């Protein structure tokens, strides 16, 4: 019944674009509303199903081809929430009236991709899974390339398409392997010892690459930043918020199918996670483009999630079920949280971009004064993503941390060393994320606009503010309502770990109380200050600039300069490129400073390598020069060669 609900929801969401089209492109506004409405209805159904499933009502549909259990539900819930939020947001952000040609296609692609994602979460049959996966990927492709008039968008789209196909081929191999091993397409847990360990490891490796490509684990992340930068912002929100999580879901699901996991699975996940987390956030810190910055933060958060997953696997092998539950619970909760606050951040960024017309951090500034509500929502998202109390990010990171700490406290073995390195790594990640988002909030929303053109004009419309506020409230709710999380997280984690009845033993109530205390204390202090300052004059006079006569907005600390120290500290990994100003004469001419941090993997490895390969293959073209004599010669060479082979085989 729940599964049916979810499937119905998926159906509605997938059809939303079509329905809207039927509503008619003659009345674009109407079509927008109808599309969003249908999608919203489907999302509501899906969300309801997810909640029911989390409450313990897992069931199957169509003879087990589709099924909805707590594990799927944890991933399904944010899909529904964020999907609806983005659909509503698009009413004002990407209306058909403004984009008569693109909007209907985008609407359809958006719905199809979301529906495909939902079916991926429900599928228990390899063909259905792969089909839904590909539908999701292709729908995502069309959503990303909605504005394919721009060359940059086309290139990003192609990169996305190629990497998604690479991942799909890995999954094809993976499921073919399972099919060959089990003799059936059903995705049901293997009996221990049924399949050889080597084969299981091969399957896991394929899953790691295939799903890792989709999730954006370093170094498989190359497609992610360009695609997020190119896509319309609400699509970026969906991509980064939930779509890439399908990769995480896949890894968890596959691991839950394979009974006996050797240690290296968990170790590789943990190490990849730490690398992704640290390098992801370091690269984010170095970005000049608001959306690329957020995209790199997705890589960081995926890394944190992978870290939790790996720890959970290792702990399960070591028989520390409590640690495994903490780590996996944290990872799963972080999946939900990241969907909420990253969605929120992208939507906020979209509002800013729409108002100011630029994504360049070094042009922005002072947005908060014209868009206070947007600024508040974005700030909430920032605090949440940095993992600070009292918001949701803190809870999930806390769970993963305490998993690590318990491992360390227990001591012994390779796990201990990894954990002892991962915990400070996570701390470093947290510090860098703090620096990065302090920078974003400060540079975009506070101070003054650095370019006059980038001056925000007015607050975002209600259709965009509404979803942002909803997401911000959700972040706060999870942060304050942590006490309610134990049961659902346990329900989901025990499926992945195959440990029925277990639930993470964490002082969720204490976390709630702490958050509450913080809110109350800060609130009280704030009110007291308000009261004290009630009679003090309105803001007056310029900022004290230490005696400098004519301060201008251009003199503010820019995003790049804010990050400079840390970027230099991580130069060994980021390989920044800077063009310093040339001061030649006594009275030097006007000069400029330019800095840029390339993506080491994409610009340093993937693109050159593919160029090289293409050139190499190009060499073969001399074989096809148009001479019919040569062609006939090939025929004879083939003949003689095959005859020789067959003669030799005798």
């Amino acid at each position: 019944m729940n599964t049916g609900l979810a499937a119905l929801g998926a159906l509605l969401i997938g059809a939303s674009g079509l329905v809207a089209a039927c509503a008619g492109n003659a009345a674009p506004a109407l079509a927008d509303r109808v599309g969003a409405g249908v999608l919203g209805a489907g999302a509501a159904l899906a969300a309801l199903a997810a909640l029911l499933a989390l409450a313990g009502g897992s069931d199957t549909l169509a003879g087990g081809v589709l099924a909805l259990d707590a594990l799927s539900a944890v991933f399904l819930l944010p899909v529904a929430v964020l999907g609806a939020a983005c659909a509503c947001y698009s009413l004002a952000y990407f209306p058909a009236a403004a984009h008569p040609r693109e909007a209907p296609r985008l609407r359809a692609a958006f719905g199809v991709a979301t529906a495909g994602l939902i079916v991926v979460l429900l599928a228990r049959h390899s063909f259905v899974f792969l089909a839904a996966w590909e539908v999701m990927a292709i729908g995502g492709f069309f959503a990303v390339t909605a504005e394919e008039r721009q060359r940059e968008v086309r290139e990003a789209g192609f990169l996305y398409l190629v990497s998604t196909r690479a991942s799909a081929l890995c999954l094809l191999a993976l499921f073919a392997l399972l099919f060959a091993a089990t003799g059936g397409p059903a995705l049901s847990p293997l009996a221990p010892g049924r399949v050889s360990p080597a084969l299981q490891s091969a399957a896991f490796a394929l899953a790691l690459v295939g799903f890792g490509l989709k999730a954006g684990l370093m170094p498989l992340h190359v497609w992610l930043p360009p695609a997020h930068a190119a896509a319309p912002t609400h699509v970026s929100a969906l991509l980064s918020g939930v779509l890439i999580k399908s990769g995480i879901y896949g890894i968890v699901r596959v691991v839950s199918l394979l009974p006996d996991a050797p240690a290296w699975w968990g170790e590789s996940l943990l190490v990849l996670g730490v690398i992704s987390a640290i390098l992801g956030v370091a690269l984010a810190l170095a970005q000049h483009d608001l959306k690329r910055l957020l995209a790199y933060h997705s890589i960081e958060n995926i890394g944190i999630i992978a870290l939790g997953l790996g720890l959970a696997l290792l702990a399960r092998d070591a028989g520390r079920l409590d640690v495994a539950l903490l780590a996996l619970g944290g990872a799963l909760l972080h999946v939900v949280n990241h969907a909420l606050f990253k969605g929120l951040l992208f939507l906020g960024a979209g509002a800013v971009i729409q108002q100011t017309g630029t994504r360049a951090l070094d042009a922005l500034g002072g947005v908060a004064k014209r868009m206070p509500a947007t600024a508040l929502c974005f700030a909430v998202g920032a605090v949440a993503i940095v993992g600070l109390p009292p918001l949701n990010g803190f809870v999930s990171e806390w769970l993963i941390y305490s998993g690590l700490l318990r491992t360390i406290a227990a001591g012994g073995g390779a796990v201990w060393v990894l954990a002892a390195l991962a915990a400070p790594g996570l701390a470093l990640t947290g510090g860098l994320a703090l620096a990065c988002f302090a920078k974003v909030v400060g540079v975009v929303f506070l101070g003054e606009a650095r370019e006059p053109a980038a001056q925000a004009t007015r607050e975002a419309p209600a259709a965009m503010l509404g979803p942002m506020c909803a997401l911000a409230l959700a972040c706060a709710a999870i942060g304050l309502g942590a006490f309610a999380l134990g049961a659902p997280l346990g329900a989901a984690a025990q499926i992945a770990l195959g440990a029925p009845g277990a639930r993470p033993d964490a002082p969720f109530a204490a976390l709630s109380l702490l958050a509450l205390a913080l809110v109350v204390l800060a609130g009280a202090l704030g009110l007291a200050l308000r009261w004290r300052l009630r009679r003090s004059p309105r803001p007056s006079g310029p900022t004290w600039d230490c005696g400098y006569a004519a301060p201008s907005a251009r003199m503010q600390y820019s995003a790049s300069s804010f990050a400079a120290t840390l970027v230099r500290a991580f130069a060994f990994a980021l390989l920044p490129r800077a063009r310093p100003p040339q001061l030649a004469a006594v009275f030097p001419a006007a000069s400029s400073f330019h800095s840029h941090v390339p993506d080491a993997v994409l610009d340093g490895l993937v693109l050159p390598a593919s160029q090289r390969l293409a050139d190499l293959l190009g060499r073969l073209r001399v074989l096809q020069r148009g001479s019919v004599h040569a062609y006939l010669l090939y025929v004879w060479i083939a003949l003689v060669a095959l005859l020789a082979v067959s003669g030799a085989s005798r």
Partner: protein
Amino acid sequence: MNAADVLLALLAPLLFPPLLLGAITRTKARIAGRRGPPLLQPYFDLARLLRKGVVRSRTTTWVFLAGPVVALASAWLAAFMIPLGARGALIGFPGDLIAFAYLLALGRFFTIAAALDTGSAFEGMGAAREAAFSCLAEPAALFALLVLVKLSGSTSLGSMLGPELPQLWAVGAPSLGLAAVSLFVVLLAENSRIPFDDPTTHLELTMVHEVMVLDHSGPPLALILYGAAVKLFAYGLLLVRLATPFDVGGTALGAAIALVELLGLAVLIGVVESVMARLQLVRIPSLLVGAGLLSAFGVMLLAG
């Protein structure tokens, strides 16, 4: 712990911190051969500031005021997590050391935001430095705490620093020693003391923390100074408890001893500030990384 202890644990973080600032200033003055301001001068300053009016820049928003408030609130909560003496942490639960670190991080986040809110190049500079240095300080602190976690097998500050701390010293003295040293370095860095930052300098270009609050005045500035003191108190309490692990039984007595030790720490800081020069900014990261490696080494000693 009984009502009196609770009251003590509640009041100490509220009332005691400014005294530390006073002690430090006094020590430095004495070493410099001056008499220096009275020990209670910080309290007077706070009272004066609270009575003053406020001048705010046109550039600023609500964030400008939120900064001091959140910083102080989070610093208080953090301070409540450290036991006064062997026992008697007001807040304590498994894994609270993470909460401790993240509360202080929250304060930092808002302080930085408030600084950037003014749109001043200098405050931006300070904010950038604050962010960068704390990034490096945090892993160092965590490594130091990991030593305690490994030895005590617990993840709650209250029990890690609790009565059985002496036994831990008996087991892992070298590691704990290294941890204590690196914690001291972190303390100096996080509370912007020499050699990392000179609270009394007048050259904005070299400031870290002070330059971030240039535009604050009146009550908000008071909150900032007070919050900084509370933060120093929290770190100091953690450090003295780690460094002097003995347990005298009774909560109140233990608390009293701890506070005295804190004053001692303040004097020590004063001495350090008087005998050392401020580091070049570019050299600071390496010092923090060094501290981190120190405590990491401490952890590695416990491997296996």
